[in-house]
């Protein structure tokens, strides 16, 4: 079965992203496929590489990034939500005339159409949020 996963909360404040990551690992472990993971609302904060949690805490963004690399996953940050919250890739930062970018490897920034396409293409769409 093919899944699209939507994550609507940022890391640390909510547990949604942790639960979604565990769910995604299970999906693959059971032989299913992940079409796309789409990050919306504060969920786009899962795509920054500038988080520095205390040493005894998990670094969720890095876990997503590595999970994506190992499994060749499509992790998409909504562009409108990312712009509001200051999550930028190199080309977007340049386009907006900003002096820095902060996206972590393994994520890309794209439009909301990617979420709708995910809903159409997957057999199941699962939302993690408040």
């Amino acid at each position, binding site marked *: 079965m093919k899944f699209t996963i*939507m994550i*609507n909360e940022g890391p640390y404040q909510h547990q949604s992203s942790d639960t979604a990551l565990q769910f995604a690992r299970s999906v693959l472990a059971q032989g299913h496929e992940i079409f796309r993971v789409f990050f*919306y*609302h504060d969920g786009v904060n899962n795509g920054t590489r500038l988080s520095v949690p205390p040493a005894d805490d998990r670094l969720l963004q890095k876990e997503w990034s590595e999970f994506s690399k190992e499994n060749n996953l499509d992790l998409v940050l909504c562009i*409108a*939500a990312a712009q*509001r919250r200051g999550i930028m890739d190199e080309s977007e930062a340049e386009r907006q005339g900003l002096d820095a970018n902060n996206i972590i490897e393994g994520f890309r920034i794209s*439009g*909301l*159409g990617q*979420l*709708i*396409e995910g*809903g*159409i293409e997957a057999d199941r*769409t699962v*939302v993690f*949020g*408040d």
Partner: protein
Amino acid sequence: MATKKFMFVNRKAPYGTVYALESLEVVLISAAFEQDVSLAFVDDGVYQITKGQDTKGIGQKNFSNTYKALGDYEIKKLYVEKESLEERGLTQDDLMDLVWEDEDDDWAEKPSIIMVNRSEMADVMAEQEVTLSF
């Protein structure tokens, strides 16, 4: 591209958090994909479509007029849960008149709001293929 039954479940008040505003952005994009779209308004989500919203005092953008444009995007099934209204002391009279124009009926304006009780809402949700909740 295939057509699926999409439902957007609106559970939060329009102001206080950004869920309602950003939900509406997804709804509008979904229209471009020509999907079979329904909206559900439950819990505090019913406040999103109340009339007479005035945000001047709170420094937030009043986006309530956008709901009136949904009919123009062929989004014409807005399910509102009766119990959620009642629990908040609201009736359908407190909601905006949301309509769509039926081109097969000389562009007659028809109501978009469909009042359902909690168990009917569950039935409508069960029919959906993609349910996104905000």
